[in-house]
């Protein structure tokens, strides 16, 4: 008889280990960029502007003559931290709202459900543009917060559905009959069984948020110099693509790999926790 559960299912899949390995490297990049590049990303030599890859500069130099490789390495931190931070905030909001709505039901559910719908109905990009423009200062935290505000509703819906499903399960009814306080029932019986699919979805969200950050930065609304981020690199490189394609290609490839890994990982996890949805 084969083992059941998420871990035994995923650990035999190559599609699980591949993205995990890639993400591990990226997290290392973000945490210790100095290990991967001894070049200061802000040491720039204008006379070597837009020079293609050469020895000492494996990815070439950008318009300002800065090392593209060093910028890609240091840029991982901004992109990943915004992705993680924003998803964590969104997850926090989603768990609170979703659990409340799912467990309480009735009018609470209706009110919170409509609230979620309001946020879902709001065009994300438009909302982010309005908020970031009126904020003025654009730090990693501000961008993460704005992105979180617009990405929690999907997660909250998922939490609500899962909580509703396990609310009436027999073990929950038993716990209730034994007179456990609600907090304990939620924390020990409902949430542990509801959270799996939500985490899988959250992994997908991280990828989405990273893309959204790049989009906003590309439009001049996200991070700004002197921050180092992939979105910023893409924004400066786009108008010079024909003269210096390497300044666009390398950060673009890193961004694509990161997002692809996160999406693949999210898919694998979702398949494992919820085989019915497997396509």
């Amino acid at each position, binding site marked *: 008889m084969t083992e059941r559960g998420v871990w035994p299912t995923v650990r035999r899949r190559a599609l699980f280990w591949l993205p995990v390995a890639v993400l591990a490297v990226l997290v290392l990049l973000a945490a210790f960029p100095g290990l991967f590049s001894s070049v200061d990303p*802000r*040491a*720039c030599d*204008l*006379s070597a*502007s*837009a020079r293609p890859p050469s020895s000492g500069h494996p990815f070439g130099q950008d*318009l*300002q*003559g*800065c090392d593209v490789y060093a910028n890609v390495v240091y840029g991982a931190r901004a992109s990943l931290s915004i992705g993680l931070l924003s998803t964590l905030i969104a997850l926090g909001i989603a768990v609170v709202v979703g659990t409340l709505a799912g467990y309480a039901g009735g009018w609470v559910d209706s009110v919170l459900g409509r609230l979620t719908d309001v946020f879902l109905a709001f065009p994300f990009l438009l909302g982010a543009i309005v908020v970031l*423009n009126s904020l*003025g200062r654009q730090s990693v935290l501000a961008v993460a917060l704005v992105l979180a505000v617009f990405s929690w509703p999907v997660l909250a819906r998922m939490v609500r559905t899962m909580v509703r499903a396990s609310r009436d399960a027999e073990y929950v009814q038993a716990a209730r009959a034994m007179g456990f306080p609600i907090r304990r029932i939620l924390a020990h019986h409902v949430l542990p069984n509801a959270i799996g699919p939500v985490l899988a979805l959250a992994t997908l969200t991280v990828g989405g948020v990273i893309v959204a950050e790049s989009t906003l930065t590309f439009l*001049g609304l996200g991070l*700004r*110099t*002197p921050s180092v981020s992939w979105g910023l690199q893409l924004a*400066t490189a786009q*108008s*010079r693509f*024909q*003269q210096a394609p390497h300044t666009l290609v390398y950060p673009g490839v890193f961004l694509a790999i990161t997002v692809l890994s996160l999406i693949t990982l999210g898919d694998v996890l979702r398949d494992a926790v919820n085989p019915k949805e497997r396509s």
Partner: protein
Amino acid sequence: MKRALGAALSCLLVLSSCAPNQPADEPRKAISYAVEEPITLHPGRQTIAFAQDMVLFSGLTFAGKDGAITFRNAESVTSTDAVRWTIKLRPRWTFHNGEPVTAKSYVKAWSAVAYGPNAWENSGQLANIAGYDALNPANGKPAATELSGLKIVDDLTFTVTLKSPDGQFPAQLSQAQTGFYPLPEAAYADPAAFAKNPIGNGPFRMTQPYRETEPMTVDRYDGYQGPQPSVDEITFKPYTDMNTAYTDVQAGATDILYVPNSRMGQVKKDFGDRAHVFQGLAISYLGLPLWDKRYQDIRVRQAISLAIDREAVSKAIFDGIWEPATALTPPAQPGTPRGLCGDLCTFDPVRARKLLAEAGGFSGTMEIRFPGGFGRDDLFNAYANQLRQNLGIKDVTAKPTADFPEFFELRTGAKLSGPYFARWGALYASQQNTLRAIYTRTGGCSNCVPDHDPAIAQLIAKADAQVDPQRAIAGYVDVQKAILKRFPAPPMFFEKNVFATSERIASLDEGAGLTLENTTLVR
């Protein structure tokens, strides 16, 4: 044979259509020009419709490519004391509706432009005419409605009395100072309607009223008395993003474009000899916040100037098109003393560090600010990198504001703490325009260089008072020498006007801005 006879016959019947200067088989010469949405075409109000108004109207004088002033609608503009000017108009000029252009067309128009309650944008161009202050009291409604400094002598002659002597007055009357244009009687009843469908005295006339977001076509005016244009028809195509216009010109869908900063690095590669570079009348400075103690030592300011490799910056960002500034005014202004700045405008990082060290170093962060959305991000990031690396200041950043109004507010309110964007594009080719704008308190380039020394203002006034052009130039050079001794801000670049054209265009002509009517087409 029969057809030839028929053609000859129709020539006899309709003589005008067979005039020798317009052979029937030659197609109309039509060109199109990419513009921003002009909003208004009223010469007293426009701030971004120069191209349109410069072909719909003709000024009294005209500035050519080298900045030389010739007379256009005026036959002569003369004075002996630089205060009282006599302007004689050329005879037989008419507006597009047939109304003759007379002294009254000018005098009435100038009074309307200067009249405070109208609040027309180009009013300031007339500020030195006597009686201007009476039309613009600090509060309340002005008692007068006409400029007291203007007197009509006869149909084609009027006199102008200035508040202070100004030998550059004829240059101020040239084509880009649209506040000095004449207006027909039809302009006054409904200025808003006139702004959409102006009736001018220039080489081209409107074919139909201007409508926002739609291309606007102007047609050659046969009654025009000035130099004949080389094209028959000009279409102004509005774009919200000039990068789109750039690709349109590449594809041949539009003929002429003023190349935006963001495309300057590649325009020569994309267009080859269809990229036209003109001197232009704009100069870029790096403004310094003199209200901040750290910038009050002249050695710090000199160090900043010496630490930026202008040549390398232009080469990397603008493909070498911008020219490193070596004087305080752009070279297209006659008599600009190229090279006057000397060593201080060259790149010398060793001397820069030494000067900074002598001044006691630099403490804290240096935050360079500039208006976002104008394609200048790369330029200011390059400044920041240069200052950080060559001066050894650890934390130098370049930060754009959200838009120009935000930047303007910060600069006007002296709320900037680091170097900043300072640029002046002159409207007429005289050093006076740039020096006045940047170095006098009410000059217009508010806080571009926040150093308003009375001695400098006196030197400018002294040069202004010269009627003889050569003596005026010598006076302005003295002004520049005196300013350079104070070195309030480093001049950075003589900017250039770059145009890209489609394959249909053979040549462009520039005076104070593009002289569209002299464009020639490939045959």
